[in-house]
């Protein structure tokens, strides 16, 4: 059998040591009537066949020219990220409970925490959470825990709809009440946000750039929250943080985000990386693993898991969260990515992505009759464009005819936005790709007959 090293002679000797006659005799505690009548019927395969099967399945997925983002971005990943994060001493280790033989993992987490704290300009960060959505949920429960009796969380509608749906799932049976403040044409209504924050409010949560790509400064919203003794949460894109005003500079208490843009492949939905940073005063409310710097008995600097009294193996049902792991390899990838890029490299990635999105916006608006920007707000690497056709139809036709995904149809999540396409760019989507995108959109709009248009609208 694959991966089981025992020879028959060894097996028999071991059975003898244990004092049973056969392998099946080891399972006497499972009653006979509980033994399975059927089980997985398929036979095992030689390694070569598994490889061929996987290669064939991989080839069945279509490679596309993509301007799809919506919170998940296709940045270039340097070769060294895979090589370093793929080292088996990282990959096949586990939770660093035994610090003396886990300094590699522990120091890497500490360096990751430092990177995220510096990117967000907040005091500290944890070792990571599952993804951007659960990180946002955990931030909301931090607000409610800190505020004691307050349960209201003011949510900006610009937060990724996927994460808003996750919040609804996670908070369904908890004393957390979300109040949604609608966007105005894709832009945060900051006056409405401020007005919604009252004496019952535990926290306010926004996203920058928001789901439509709009970039804003939420300092005044966070100041309003502070006045009401509520906490401020901001969800960020970590690559763009090299360019955009930081959570710390805006006065946020907690920053969260999806860390996928930092060296993680899109990988059909994960594993991804939940980021969380906060002010020092909140550290004991923060869920998840934390690594701290300390010394060994000989005075050498080293690292350990710390502040574990927050965690479920000690606090059980009163823990800050049920999370008992982190996305460790993903966090390591992010750290290696940031170390390779450095501050200037990360900014170059962000600025190129932003420049490409502006180029794409200009080209589409100038080159497609009837296309216009959804609003005149500043945007980052993603832009919302109103088209003369339903965006959903355009996307499907572009995929079939041109193997190109021109963006995300906002109408899937926002009423009245059926013709709005959200176009995302990374540094990969350069001028040449934008040209192909434009041709594809033009072709599909021409191709969509008047009748079909009516049908789609109907």
């Amino acid at each position, binding site marked *: 059998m694959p991966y089981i090293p025992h020879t028959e002679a*060894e097996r028999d000797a071991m059975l003898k*040591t*244990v004092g049973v006659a056969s392998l099946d005799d080891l399972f006497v*505690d*499972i*009653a006979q009537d*509980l033994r399975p009548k059927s089980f*997985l*019927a*398929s036979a095992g*395969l030689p390694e070569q066949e598994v490889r061929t099967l996987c290669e*064939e399945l*991989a*080839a*069945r*997925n279509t490679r596309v020219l993509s301007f*799809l983002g919506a919170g998940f971005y296709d940045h270039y990943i340097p070769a*060294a990220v895979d090589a370093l994060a793929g080292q088996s001493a990282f990959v*096949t*280790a*586990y*939770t660093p409970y*035994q*610090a003396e033989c886990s*300094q590699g993992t522990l*120091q890497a987490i*500490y360096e990751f*925490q430092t990177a995220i*704290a510096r*990117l967000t300009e907040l005091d500290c960060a944890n070792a990571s959470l*599952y*993804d951007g959505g659960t990180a946002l949920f955990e931030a909301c429960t931090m607000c409610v825990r800190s505020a004691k009796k307050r349960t209201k969380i003011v949510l900006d509608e610009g937060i990724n709809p996927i994460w808003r*749906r996750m919040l609804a799932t*996670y908070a369904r*049976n908890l004393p957390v009440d979300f109040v949604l403040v609608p966007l105005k044409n894709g832009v945060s209504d900051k006056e409405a946000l401020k007005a919604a924050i009252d004496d019952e409010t535990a926290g306010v949560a926004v996203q920058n750039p928001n789901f439509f790509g709009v970039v*804003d400064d939420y300092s005044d919203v966070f100041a309003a929250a502070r006045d009401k003794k509520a906490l401020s949460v901001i969800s960020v894109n970590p690559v763009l943080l090299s360019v955009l005003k930081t959570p710390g500079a805006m006065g946020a208490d907690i920053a969260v985000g*999806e860390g996928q843009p930092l060296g993680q492949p899109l990988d*059909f*939905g*994960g*594993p991804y990386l939940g980021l969380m940073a906060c002010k020092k005063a909140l*550290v004991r409310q923060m869920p998840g693993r934390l690594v701290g*710097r*300390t010394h060994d008995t000989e005075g050498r600097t080293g690292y350990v898991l710390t502040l574990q009294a927050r965690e*479920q193996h*000690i606090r059980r*049902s009163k823990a800050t969260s*049920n*999370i008992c*792991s*982190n996305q*460790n390899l*993903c966090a390591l990838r992010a750290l290696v990515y*940031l*170390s390779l890029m450095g501050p*200037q490299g990360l900014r170059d990635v962000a*600025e190129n992505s932003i*420049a490409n999105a502006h180029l794409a916006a200009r080209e589409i608006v100038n080159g497609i009759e009837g296309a216009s920007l959804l609003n005149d707000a500043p945007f980052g690497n993603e832009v919302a464009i109103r088209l003369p056709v339903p965006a959903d139809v355009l*996307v499907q036709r572009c995929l079939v005819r041109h193997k190109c995904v021109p963006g995300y149809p906002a109408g899937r999540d926002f009423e009245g936005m059926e013709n709005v396409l959200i176009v995302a760019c990374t*540094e990969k989507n350069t001028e040449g790709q934008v040209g192909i995108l434009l041709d594809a959109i033009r072709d599909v709009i021409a191709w969509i007959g008047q009748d079909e248009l009516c049908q789609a609208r109907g």
Partner: protein
Amino acid sequence: METIYSKSVPGRRTTGLAPDPVKEGAAAFLPEGCLRKGLPGLPECSELDVVRHFTQLASKNFSVDGNFYPLGSCTMKYDPKINEVAAGLTGFTSLHPMLAQLANGQGCQGAMHVLYTLERSLCAITGMEAFTLQPMAGANGEFTGVAIIAAYHKSLGRDRRIMLIPDAAHGTNPASAAMAGFTVVELPSKDGMIDPEAIRAAIEKYGDSIAGLMMTCPNTLGLMEVHVKEIVELLHGIDALVYYDGANMNAILGKMRVGDAGFDVVHLNLHKTFATPHGGGGPGAGPVGVCERLIPFLPSPRITRKADGSYEFLTDAPQSIGKIGPFYGSFGVLLRAMAYIWRLGGEGLERVAEYAVLNANYMRVKLKDVLDIPYDRLCMHEFVASAPHGLRALDLAKGLLERGFHAPTIYFPLLVHECLMPEPTETESKQTLDAFCDALADIVAKGREHPEELAAAPHGLPVTRMDETEAARGMHLTEDM
């Protein structure tokens, strides 16, 4: 070892990894008030600086690939390399998850075949009717499972607030139940097992406020719960649901299907039973299986196979608990588990359980004269032991590290005095187990003679014992704190 930040040299970088700078900068596109002041304090290093740093860091870790790692309840088995090859194929890694929704599965059929086949395989392995692959870790699966239990009772108009959990359960069980709004009632164990009498007493006291019971089986002492049928019947008698925590599934593959035994909800840890790497703490995956009546409550979307053999995602599920993860689970982890199941097949998986249990029992017998074994009977894939009189589990653990073995889990479960919990897994050879047992016998013997030397272990590793109090008090969580 110095941090990557202290190796940073202002102005040093590897050009050509990021694109060339944008001439006019972000200020050309965005208003001043939206911009960051100054660059973030990230390392400025050459590629070789970075390569050397992380290669040296890796050398400071024990790992399954380098060391015997019998960490109980974590199932640290060998992670086959072919799984990594499969997961690294660009046809999978470059796939944007939203593509599947935008074009009804077009362009993603290969990936969706993997997901569908994995769901069906897990059903065949466990006897459950349906699975969701969304949960991103074991604890995330627990939350999903208990949220489904809450939704089930709510759909019937019931207000059931109590979740029964044995005292020996993993700490995540009560924490997950609390997140789903339940009040936890702890059940005392008897002889290391769930006591049906304790359940009867709870039913007497709380009646139909009881929503369900979460149980780990084999339990956290490494013992098979022998009253499974009676327990399931008692709970079903008040239409409470029984949750199976699959942390220890490795022990019963092919020997018992939890669906056949009447469990209503189960989560599996793919990083344990199905050999996806632990990654120093993640990412894992915690798929959840349910019986037929709970299918409507599974997270959305669900994957389905159409008559023509193609796959699509279904989002129309009015009773669904909603979204647990952003998409359809941690695909990269799921693919590795699928490759493992393809490689082993049903027969290979049954052998896994047999040899995992053989190895654990062999170690248990070999260590009888070295450690105190509180439950001296056949164990499943792991067992608990106490450090012999006068010695501490912590010191024995450190002594093992010094000799190149990762320590077993220590001080869990809490109800075992000075507890050590070894789980060898099926992929370890007799020679490795013998060497470990010999080393432990030697550590115990020497520790009795020279306790002060054992208390100073380990030597020869990158660091000696760490000052945990300083870490907690000092709160140096970053280079700037």
